[in-house]
């Protein structure tokens, strides 16, 4: 009898819970449809309707940022909001999409029509995709000059041009030229231990990796986080793109053109002799255990593995590697790292301004004030410092007007995409490694400008092919590159065959057509 009673009680509880959940579900459902049914149509909502153009009403601006939420978010944003409220009567509230799964969550935020005003975006973070799908508000010159006077003055015209999609502006790009080439971080102490030549080329790198793999037990000579589904990884970028002076149009399809080819002729990178040579190079490294046999299942943070002494090299962009280097010098001065540039003599591609930036969410009702906020984040010294570096004295020690020293609090306010506010006001880490500066300076001299720099591919007509080709890259190219397929010849033939079945030819024709039109219009 008692059993029956308690069972009924449990049952009742479940029912109540189900009702509550059901109610929650239905109400949030309603909110969603409402939001996604009524997005403004880009340019239609110009400041003409001027409803909230003034700053009389206090507004909360919601930001969507990529990266982990910094530990001291509350403290820093409280300070930031105090200043913002004084200047434009607005406060900001940020939502963070963790690095682990931002690629999945970011598009969903737009698809679900969630309520936010400013979104971080970049050419590597769905900028073209969302702009073409109508996720961002179109920004007219009038809006920009009226609500972003500082930025309008500071930003070079070419930066605006580079960030247009189909001739329309959807982004406030960052204002900080850099080179996007990748370099490799190596353990210089290990290199010296085995009397190896400095690592300056693919051959010297292979030599380093193989020596470390052969002699150091329990260390992966090279490591990558392949499990997160990147189809075109850093070593490909260095050894195929940079080495041969090619440019991949989009990292989710293997189509490239030569940098100095004025006609912009597109070819399949997997179908080149260069790629076959690279496969042999990779296979040699894999057979010598330069990386783990399970590299494609690796879920660890590679930099953390390197700090723990379990990995002896990894590839990334120069800025990140320099920060890693500075970090380790602070924390483990006994370990000696070096940044190795494997393609020092090749042409470099300048980051176009869309490398980082902020955009306005299309349905936002607070576009004007959001632009004012972005204006200050990028170009107001006080607010810029707060947003980029945190609270002076706690998270950084200002050195003059353009440098800073890291403090014990630095790690508590870092690691997310505040880079959209990069500008000439940026401070440099006073301990920024001199060698990284030297490499950067050398790269700047070799920057190569070409017509297709600002070309953007519109995949609307070939989305089936893009999805299928991406799948083939992941399934056939990645294991082949990491030397996991014993017979390279056969693996390569399979890859080409599968790409053809997936429709690479149609993709190539469409891309070539768009490139020809783009170049014809120049």
């Amino acid at each position, binding site marked *: 009898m008692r059993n029956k009673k308690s069972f009924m009680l449990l049952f009742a509880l479940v029912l109540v819970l189900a*009702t509550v959940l059901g109610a929650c579900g239905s109400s949030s*459902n309603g909110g969603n449809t409402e939001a996604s049914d009524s997005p403004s149509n880009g340019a239609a909502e110009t400041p003409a309707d001027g409803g909230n153009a003034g700053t009389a009403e206090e507004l909360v601006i919601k930001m969507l940022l990529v990266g982990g939420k910094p530990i001291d978010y509350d403290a820093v944003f409280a300070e930031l909001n105090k200043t913002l409220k004084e200047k434009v009567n607005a406060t900001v509230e940020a939502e963070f999409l963790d690095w682990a799964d931002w690629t999945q969550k970011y598009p969903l935020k737009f698809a679900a029509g969630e309520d936010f005003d400013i979104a971080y975006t970049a050419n590597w973070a769905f900028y073209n*995709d969302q702009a073409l799908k109508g996720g961002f508000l179109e920004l007219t010159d009038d809006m920009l000059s009226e609500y972003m006077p500082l930025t309008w003055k500071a930003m070079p015209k070419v930066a605006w041009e580079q960030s247009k999609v189909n001739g329309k502006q959807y982004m406030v790009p960052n204002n900080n030229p850099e080179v996007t080439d990748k370099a490799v971080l190596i353990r210089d102490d290990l290199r010296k231990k085995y009397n190896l030549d400095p690592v300056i080329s693919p051959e010297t790198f292979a030599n380093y990796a193989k020596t470390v793999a052969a002699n150091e037990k329990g260390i992966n000579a090279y490591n990558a986080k392949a499990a997160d589904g990147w189809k075109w990884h850093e070593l490909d970028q260095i050894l195929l793109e940079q080495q041969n002076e090619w440019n991949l149009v989009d990292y989710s399809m293997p189509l490239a053109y030569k940098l100095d080819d004025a006609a912009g002729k597109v070819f399949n990178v997997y179908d080149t002799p260069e790629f076959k040579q690279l496969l042999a190079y990779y296979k040699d490294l894999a057979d010598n255990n330069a990386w783990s*046999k399970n590299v494609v299942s690796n*879920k660890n943070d590679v930099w953390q593995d390197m700090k723990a002494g379990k990995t002896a090299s990894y590839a990334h962009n120069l800025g990140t590697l320099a920060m890693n280097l500075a970090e380790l010098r602070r924390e483990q001065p006994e370990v000696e790292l070096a940044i190795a540039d494997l393609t020092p003599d090749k042409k470099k591609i300048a980051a176009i301004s869309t490398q980082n930036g902020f955009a306005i969410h299309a349905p936002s009702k607070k576009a004007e004030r959001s632009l004012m906020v972005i204006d200050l984040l990028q170009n107001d010294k006080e607010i810029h410092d707060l947003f980029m570096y945190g609270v002076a004295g706690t998270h950084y020690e200002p050195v003059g007007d353009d440098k800073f020293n890291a403090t014990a609090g630095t790690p508590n306010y870092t690691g997310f995409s505040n880079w959209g506010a990069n500008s000439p006001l940026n401070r440099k880490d006073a301990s920024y490694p001199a060698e990284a500066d030297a490499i950067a300076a050398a790269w700047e001299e070799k920057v190569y400008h070409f017509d297709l720099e600002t070309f953007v591919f519109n995949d609307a007509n070939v*989305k089936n092919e893009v999805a299928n080709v991406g*799948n083939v890259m992941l*399934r056939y190219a990645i294991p082949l590159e990491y030397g996991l397929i014993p017979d390279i010849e056969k693996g390569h033939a399979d890859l080409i065959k599968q790409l053809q079945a997936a429709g690479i030819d149609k993709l190539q024709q469409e891309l070539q057509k768009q490139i020809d039109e783009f170049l014809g219009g120049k």
Partner: protein
Amino acid sequence: MNRRGFWGDVRKYRTLLLMLAPAVLFFLVFAYVPMAGIVLAFKQYNYGGGIFGSPWNGLDNFRFFFESGNAWMVTRNTALYNIAFIIVNNVLQIAAAILLFEAVGKWFRKISQTFMFLPYFISWVVVGAIAYNLFNYDVGTLNVMLTAIGLEPVDIYNTPSYWPFILVLVSAWKTLGYGSVMYLAAITGIDTEMYEAAEIDGANVFQRIFRITIPNLYPTLIILALLAIGNIFRGDFGMFYNMVGNNGLLFSATDVIDTFVFRSLTTSNEIGLSAAAGFYQSVLGFATILLANYAVRKYDKDHALF
């Protein structure tokens, strides 16, 4: 016929109807209302138009799935894995339930039941990490043990043929406790007089199990199996994605419709294509359950779902 009429019936059964209401509400909100979203499978979605305003594009969204050449492979994988899961899991769950029922000692029973139940609460993300630490080539527990006793290490993450066994095993491990509770409940409901009579007639333990317990479990088994068959074309995404991830070498043996669609479409963010794949799964699942139910009806009318 009915003197009280509709509202009279409602009044008479109000308690029962009230108890039914949450479930009806749940399915209304989460299953029937969103069903309108099926139109997305036939549309070129854009934010401006939203779900209903976007332009139609016929069967274009289905091209991706069928032209990829993978449709057959992933559909087959999904169905075969689910059939294996249904058979293996149910057999093990029934066995566990019978063992628990026959076990003497309240403490032993409670403790073993708790231990069997535990894996059910572990998230697939964690299970994936545990599996990686067990199976990886360089420092995995399994290979460290194998090399310690002088055997060759096995390269599990690069060998597709191991995976059907691993996945079936992991699924059985994870669902054993949860499933056996349902069968245990059914066993507890069997009339004890039958057992007493059997004992008097001199039936031994095995005869009791095979002649009384198992035949009495058929209705439960059939209902659970029918419910599972309706989902036979839906891969357990959490399981497959966290166990296998983006390891291309294993896809031939482990790719199910859900992971295939997820991988192809999250980064390209084409809602129409995903909706088309979901629609395909639903149609297949609907057809299968109608067939299965029809087969059960032919065999025994009382056991069919509808």
